[in-house]
């Protein structure tokens, strides 16, 4: 025993120790690279606009300290309206997503259904083939959904990938439970609601998170279908400010001295980024575990 340990120790002291040290070093660099951009944005948003523009190189703390950027940003009604629209999309979108996805997953996970295979095939086919961007756009427009938030919600009512993950989870609920409930006269809807869903809680939570993140991040369809700026979800407002560099609506209304505007528009951008990622960072520690679980649930499918 003692001898074994000794040889082991000798082995480790050579190449392995160097490797471990290099690995730890790599991890520290990796963490810095992953985290620094966000830190940079946070510091810049709290900086004095003039001092920031004079600063070069890495930013470890705010240059000066000023919350002007945040004040200006919240004066802009677009940001709050964007949050409101995104909230609408999240709430109604997720309700529809969950209802539709669990209906599809439940029915397609029942093994004694005669048309199960062809129906599944018809649905899975849409994962690999679609009409394309333009026909989909013309379709939604022809349904009269232009400038309606439903144009963003309805075409994504079911993500087939999520539905398949859910189907796998539903299929693993013991059939005897369902049979017993049927004997007691429970309807299919009731079985789904009171037996299948509660027993698949973990998967349902993960799918719910997946949909939430997708809605939160979505901007492309909103850009196609929404012309009315009052309907813009948060990500479209962010796009205007960050990508198209349009901070004019905010900075013109500002009360800082003239001539500062070009500097301030820079810090406003950073403040906007921070305000848009703070909600996610706040809930991130609580949901991270579920997300990791979700990846593995998805992996089982293969």
């Amino acid at each position, binding site marked *: 025993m003692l001898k074994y340990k000794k040889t082991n120790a000798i082995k480790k002291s050579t190449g*392995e120790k160097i*490797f471990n040290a290099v690995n*730890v070093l790599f*991890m520290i660099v*990796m*963490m810095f*690279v*992953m*985290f620094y*951009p*966000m830190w940079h*944005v946070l510091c810049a948003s709290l900086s004095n606009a003039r001092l920031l*523009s004079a600063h*070069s*190189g*890495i930013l470890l703390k705010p240059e000066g300290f000023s919350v002007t950027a945040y004040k200006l940003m919240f004066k802009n009604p677009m940001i709050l309206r964007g949050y409101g629209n995104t909230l609408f999309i999240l709430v109604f979108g997720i309700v529809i997503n969950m209802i*539709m996805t669990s*209906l599809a997953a*439940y*029915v397609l996970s*029942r093994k*004694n259904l*005669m*048309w199960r295979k062809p129906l599944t095939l*018809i*649905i899975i086919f*849409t994962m*690999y*083939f*679609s*009409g*394309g*961007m*333009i*026909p989909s756009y*013309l*379709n939604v427009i022809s349904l009269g959904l232009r400038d309606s938030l439903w144009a963003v919600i*309805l075409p994504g*009512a*079911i993500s087939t990938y999520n539905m398949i993950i859910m189907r796998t989870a539903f299929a693993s609920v013991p059939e005897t439970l369902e049979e017993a409930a049927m004997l007691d006269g429970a*309807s*299919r*809807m009731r079985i789904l609601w009171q037996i299948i869903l509660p027993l698949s809680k973990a998967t349902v939570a993960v799918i719910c998170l997946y949909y939430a993140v997708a809605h939160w991040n979505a*901007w*492309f369809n909103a850009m196609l279908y929404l012309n009315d700026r009052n309907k813009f979800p948060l*990500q479209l407002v*962010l*796009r205007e*400010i*960050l*990508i198209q560099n349009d901070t004019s609506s905010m900075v013109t209304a500002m009360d800082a001295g003239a001539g500062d505007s070009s500097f301030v528009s820079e810090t406003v*951008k950073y403040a906007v*980024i921070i305000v848009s*990622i703070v909600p*996610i960072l706040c809930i991130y520690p609580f949901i991270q575990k579920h*997300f*990791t679980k979700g*990846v593995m649930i998805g*992996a089982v499918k*293969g």
Partner: protein
Amino acid sequence: MKNKAVKTEDKLSFKYRVRMDMKRNYPLYLMLIPVILFYIIFCYKPMYGALIAFKDYEPALGVWGSAWVGLKHFKAFFENPDFIRVLRNTLTISISSIVFGFPAPIILALLFNELRLRRLKSVAQTISYLPHFISLVVVCGMIKDFVSQGGIIYQLVTSMGGDSVGLLSRQELFVPIYVLSDIWQQVGWGSIIYLAALAGIDQELYEAAQVDGAGKWAQLFNVTLPGLAPTIIIMLILRLGNLLNVGYEKVILLYNPLIYETSDVISSYVYRVGFAQQNWSYSSAVGLLNSVVNFMIVITANRIANKTSETSLW
């Protein structure tokens, strides 16, 4: 005669089975109605709408009423100099993403797996997942800011020698920016699935290898990588199936007319031609071509995987 009798019996039993199935399972089929309606309206109707690729689409005439023109739009695309450009860019971006982006999470997972300091391991993992949760618009906003004049990455690059335009105005830098930022955002998240696979490898295999005198490298090649192989193959098929689906949302957010030469991909081209020039039929044709080729790639990738190993998607 006998044959015919068997056939009718078969038919009867089929009809009978359908009726029994309906009787027993009609509540299930009722529940499926909204789902089927969704797939018809939002998936299959656009496929029918894709017929405009073979027509000169007039919104007033509708899909069916517009005049057929056969393969005119496909021909026009092949003869257009843009064809070579968008195909080349799509393949360049896609292949560089696969070459650099695909192994990155595998390597990261292996390194995580070798970390002996538990605390550091969990902190490093948590931080590496973080960028995945930032929305694409914000990530692109950050990229644009960092590589524009005076931005932090711009300073870093130009301090090693360089000129004075924003990095996103330089054609040769679009692909590196695209690929590196993608790795930054997705490497941690992508490593989760490999970590799960690593955790599933039987520890006894390592002990047996050690008894046989296998060093760390021998263990890597003879135990770890074979254990990861099924996961790697599945992920690679999924990735290859998307060969022509470069993340166009990111391209559209990042590119500008100065660098179309290296950044314009098939989907961003479809988007621009369709929406800016209202050239519905032509852009549908390009999109349809993309869908069809993509579909064939998925099928082929899966078939190859099926033959070379036991792993496949379906």
